[in-house]
């Protein structure tokens, strides 16, 4: 019984400190967004610039509705979004499937580190627009090229965060498992990977950011669907309201994916930050 009381006492102050900070931060965030919207509406209402440069919020909203209902650039808004989301999602899947094992190898094997670390360091600083042409030469202009370009952009953050996550496993946590007779594989599965997960999730966030950034570049080439394609089509005809509508949709997707990640963390990785 004494245990339970101690427990409650220990937890309450921590929650109390975090909660007001969060809501205050959220309030400021909402206020900033509302303020910007107001400024935007004001700027176009008072005609500070031509609507070609800055269409009013209402026109952007109209563009959104137009794209959603009758469609724009050969497809409806939902179809564009689905195409982009599919590309980023598929790339994320590929990158995780490659990047996490590569990170584990670099972190746990000297040979793996010797071979893979320079490769990752080579890829890491490359801008996607630089290797995009090469990938098109190699893999054509189809869907695989686009997914591949996005995957490459996401790879380095995943690998690096996996490596540093594995290194974060405590020495005695590793020794404990070894003293209980863990094999190399068991050590990896039971200790190193779970210890690395919080860090991998941080890497995942950074990778998703890089993914959305690269999406537009990937959709530059021979795409017929996708938010990046929609924006570029609109830009060619100076349909600025549609450009802004596309940008807002990318930002919305990125925000939703970020919240999704946070939800997964809270639901499945409750130990993050506790130790």
């Amino acid at each position, binding site marked *: 019984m004494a*245990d339970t009381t101690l427990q409650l006492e220990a937890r309450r102050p921590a929650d109390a400190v975090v909660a007001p900070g969060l809501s205050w931060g959220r309030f400021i965030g909402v206020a900033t967004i509302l303020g910007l919207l107001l400024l935007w509406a004001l700027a176009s209402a008072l005609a500070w610039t031509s609507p070609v440069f800055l269409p009013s919020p209402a026109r952007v909203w109209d563009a959104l509705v137009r794209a959603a209902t009758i469609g724009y650039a050969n497809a409806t808004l939902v179809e564009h979004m689905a195409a982009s989301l599919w590309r980023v999602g598929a790339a994320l899947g590929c990158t995780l499937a490659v990047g996490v094992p590569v990170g584990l190898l670099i972190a746990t094997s000297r040979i793996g580190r010797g071979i893979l670390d320079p490769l990752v360091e080579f890829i890491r600083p490359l801008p996607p627009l630089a290797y995009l042409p090469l990938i098109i030469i190699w893999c054509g202009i189809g869907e695989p090229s686009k997914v591949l370009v996005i995957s490459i952009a996401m790879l380095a953050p995943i690998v690096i965060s996996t490596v540093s996550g594995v290194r974060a496993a*405590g020495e*005695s946590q590793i*020794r*404990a498992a070894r*003293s209980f007779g*863990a094999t190399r594989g068991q050590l990896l599965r039971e200790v190193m990977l779970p210890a690395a997960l919080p860090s991998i999730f941080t890497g995942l966030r950074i990778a998703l950011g890089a993914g959305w950034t690269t999406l537009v570049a990937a959709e530059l080439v021979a795409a017929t669907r996708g938010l990046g394609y929609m924006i570029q089509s609109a830009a060619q005809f100076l349909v600025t309201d549609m450009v802004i509508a596309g940008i807002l949709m990318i930002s919305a997707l990125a925000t939703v994916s970020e919240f999704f990640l946070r939800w997964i963390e809270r639901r499945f990785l409750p*130990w993050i930050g*506790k130790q």
Partner: protein
Amino acid sequence: MSILSLHNVSLRYDPDGEPVLEDVTLDLARGDFISVIGRSGSGKTSLLNLAAGFLPPSSGRVLINSRPVTGPGPDRAVVFQDDALYPWQTVVENVALPLKLAGVAPAERLQTARRLLDSVGLGEHGQRRIWQLSGGQRQRIGIARALAARPEFLLMDEPLGALDAMTREMMHGLILKLWNDSRAGTLLITHSVEEALFLSTRVVVLAPFPGRIVLNEPFDFGRRFLSGENPRVLKSDPAFIAARERLVTAIHDEETV
């Protein structure tokens, strides 16, 4: 009957530097409870790491039943000073881990883990997470986990170091009871002379620079406690007080050198 023995063991971390342990010889048999005591830096943790197989000796031999130790193994369970529990697992999963690694089926290992949790007084906390527990509760989980795979030897590195005096006393009774039930040959590293005296069948004093054994003496206060004598009375027994003075002097003598 298994014996874990260190034969004339020396250890240098730096091949050209001073030895951290020099010519240490120690036998730990099933049913033994050996406490190692000594100043900070005298090489207690290094000694435990040698016995656990985390480090190879620079010279001398570490043997189990006359066979050389080549690495850590499930016959020697370790309890760490920083509990070394896994926050991604529930309490009961932590305790069941050694059995999982040994390939025991889920239902069976969870049942064993729950029984062990009961024996350390944490039966109701199985589904909680590590960070929701106090330091003393965590150390009890660490001990329960170490005992899960029925090790022949239990190696503990200052498991009670971070606990308050009251919790320590409660843990002493628990450790003695678990030791008596499991009969695992136990090596306990501690800073507390009273703790060493009260728990052990044998106390070893390690002097620093280089780490070497300067006193190695058997005691029976733990057995007397187990056979029902009052711990307060035991600790004020003249024999206990005299032994305490002897140990303190052995540790202190080296301090003035």
